[in-house]
């Protein structure tokens, strides 16, 4: 079981769904959902820089298609802290998009640990849990 997981998604239902599935599978002790990507980013940056006591989440489920700050913008803002995040925090893109271009782009982004398509499958959750 993981200690801490972040879900970043501008859609309330999506957060509820991911949380409910993770809960049903006893995936993590703490599941934190962020409707506002900026807040999540600030949270992460503070932890990565060490300016906050909060530990980094071990897993982040990041949506791509968000207003204000897209998933790609989010990753770009995190990229200077890649070393600090390495081995401590894995970022999975969790998107409803079936656009192959995005999958390709994800494969070329080193911060991305995996590309998952909504809805979250139980099998993936099992696999992720095993690699805990």
């Amino acid at each position, binding site marked *: 079981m993981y200690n801490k997981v972040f879900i970043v998604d*501008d859609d309330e239902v999506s957060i509820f769904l991911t949380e409910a599935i993770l809960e049903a599978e006893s995936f993590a002790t703490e599941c934190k959902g962020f409707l506002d990507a900026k807040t999540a980013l600030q949270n992460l940056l503070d932890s990565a820089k060490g300016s906050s006591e909060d530990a980094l989440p071990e897993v982040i489920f990041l949506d791509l298609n968000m207003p204000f700050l897209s998933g790609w913008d989010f990753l770009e803002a995190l990229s200077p802290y890649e070393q600090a995040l390495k081995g401590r925090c894995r970022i999975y893109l969790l998107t409803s998009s079936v656009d192959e271009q995005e999958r390709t782009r994800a494969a070329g982004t080193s911060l991305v640990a995996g590309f998952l398509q909504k809805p979250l499958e139980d099998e993936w959750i099992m696999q992720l849990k095993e690699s805990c």
Partner: protein
Amino acid sequence: MQDVTSPIQSNTGLESMRLERLNRLLFNNYPDAIYTIALDGTFHTVNHTVCQILQRERHELLGNNYQHIIHPEHLEESGKYFKAAKQGLPQRYQTVVLNNSGETVHLDVTNFPLKTVSDKMVGIFGIAKDITEQKERERALLRTTQELQRQNEELELFRKIIAHDFRSPVARLLGLGKLLQKDNLPEKTQQTALVALLQSAQQLDGMVRDLNQMLALHHQGDEPREKCDVEELVQLCVANIQQEISNAGATITLAGTERMELFTVKAFLVSIIQNLLSNAIKYRLPDRPLEVMISLKQQGDEAIIAVADNGTGMDLDKIGPSLFKMYKRFHQDIDGKGLGLYLVKEQVRLLQGRIEVASTPGLGTTFTVTLPMHS
């Protein structure tokens, strides 16, 4: 059977023809325009085709300056070519002339300097081919290419809408369905999931309807244009959304008393104005009474319609490029389908106009729509 290996059998007859006469025959019957112009620019000789192209009698042309038939926009250019030919350099160029009915005729012109045996310049000898049809075909082809390009871009846009926007409620429905299948789900989770299931289905339904409306838009673009009094249409829009206006306590004023009449697609113009008004109401500041100013101005053959509000405003540096995209929303607290501005932009485009936006966060936003008076 005729012996095809020796086609010229009566060359004795040909020989008897004098070269000069042959030349004259050729000159008069050649399918392209042939002419000579004196050094002062006046026509010296013209063949039958020149008269045909210009729809003028020979005597109307001879002794008159060639400049009289050139399209005003091409006068300067053709003057340069004429001068160069006078200096002894053959010229080949395309130009436009006007025939007697005032119609434009495109010509492919070749002008040679005409010299005497003692090498003295006496005038210009030229041949001009009527390429109007070819030009029109080229233009039609270009229009078709542009339209195809635009449609391809649109197809790519619809692909993206399906890949991203339509997939989103579908994924939710699938996820919620799967979740609801699970045993011993907490009662509260189950309730929330059921509500969300219905909402997602409704959202998907709304998007299908929107897309249908969007696709129908393009057929409406072919609709006949009619005279539209902009002031009347603004009043119609205000009446249409009177409820929203009163609920918001908004004041809508029309500046510019000048009567403005556009020849355009009425349904589009109404939709454009109404969407911009609705937008202003949606994005008003909660603690400042909304004032919307619609100003009308005619500039040349263009109508400028500006809708200015004192609402929330936006940071255009951040959202500028995405502002008119489908299903993009920039205000978290306000329920919008994210379709309004996309529709406005598409309708403006179909009317061959343009839309600009200026905005300052906290102060307000101005949308300026420029449309041809006659589209």
